[in-house]
C-alpha cells in the first residue's frame, strides 16, 4: 500500500511507474491512470512553451490531503501523483495520476476525483509563451464545477 507524490522537473516513464505502483500486491485487479500533456493551443493562441510554478511544501501537503480523502471515499490500494514543474513544451507530459483497486469502478472514480481535486486545490500556476507574449493561464470555472460533483465546494475562481 503506497500513496506517494512527486513534484519534479524531469520527465517520467509511465510504464515503469505503473509497474512499480502495482508490484507485489496481488489483490490488485484494476489500475486506472490519467496523463495530462501540454497542448499546442490554449484559449485561441498557439503555445510555444510554458513555465510551471508551484508552492513547495503546500503542494505536497495538499496532494497528500486529497489522497487521504480518496482513501476514505473509495476502496483503493495505492495511488501515485507525479506533477512536473519548470519549463515544458507541447506534447510534454505534465501530470500523471494512477490508482489501483480490486475492480475497475473504484479506481476509475478515484482517479477522476484526484484530478478534479488537484485542478482547483493544488498550488500550481502555468505561464504560457504565445506569439502575443507571455501570459498567466486563467483558472476555469468548469474545474470548480467538476469538483462540486463530488460534493466539495471549490472557490478557486471566486473573486
Amino acid at each position: 500500500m503506497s500513496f506517494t507524490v512527486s513534484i519534479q522537473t524531469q520527465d517520467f516513464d509511465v510504464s515503469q511507474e505503473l509497474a512499480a505502483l502495482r508490484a507485489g500486491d496481488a489483490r490488485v485487479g484494476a489500475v486506472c491512470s490519467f496523463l495530462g500533456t501540454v497542448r499546442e493551443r490554449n484559449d485561441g493562441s498557439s503555445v510555444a512553451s510554458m513555465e510551471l510554478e508551484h508552492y513547495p511544501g503546500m503542494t505536497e501537503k495538499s496532494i497528500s490531503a486529497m489522497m487521504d480523502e480518496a482513501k476514505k471515499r473509495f476502496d483503493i490500494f495505492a495511488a501515485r501523483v507525479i506533477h512536473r514543474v519548470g519549463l515544458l513544451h507541447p506534447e510534454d507530459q505534465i501530470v500523471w495520476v494512477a490508482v489501483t483497486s480490486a475492480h475497475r469502478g473504484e479506481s476509475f472514480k478515484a482517479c477522476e476525483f484526484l484530478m478534479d481535486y488537484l485542478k482547483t486545490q493544488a498550488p500550481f500556476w502555468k505561464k504560457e509563451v504565445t506569439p502575443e507574449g507571455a501570459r498567466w493561464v486563467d483558472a476555469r470555472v468548469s474545474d470548480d464545477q467538476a469538483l462540486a460533483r463530488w460534493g466539495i465546494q471549490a472557490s478557486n475562481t471566486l473573486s
Partner: protein
Amino acid sequence: MKVNLKYFASIREAIGQGSESVNTQAATLQALRDELMARGGAYAEVLAHGRAVRMALDQDLCEGSAALSDGCEVAFFPPVTGG
C-alpha cells in the same frame, strides 16, 4: 507578531518579490491583506477586494477570517492552474 509572507505567480511578479517577513498587529488573514493593501502601489492593486486572490495559512487554503499566530506562514496567490 512576526509573519512570514509568500507570493506566487502573477502576484509575485507584480510585487517584485517572492517572500518577506513582516511585523503585524493584524489578527486575521483579511486584516493582514488590508494592511498590505494600505502600502499602496502594486500591493493595493493585486490584493484589492474583488480580485480573485487565494490565501493560505501555514500551507492550507483559508478564508479571510482565519486567525494568525506568531511565526505563521501566509501566502497570497491567484487561482491555481495546475494539472
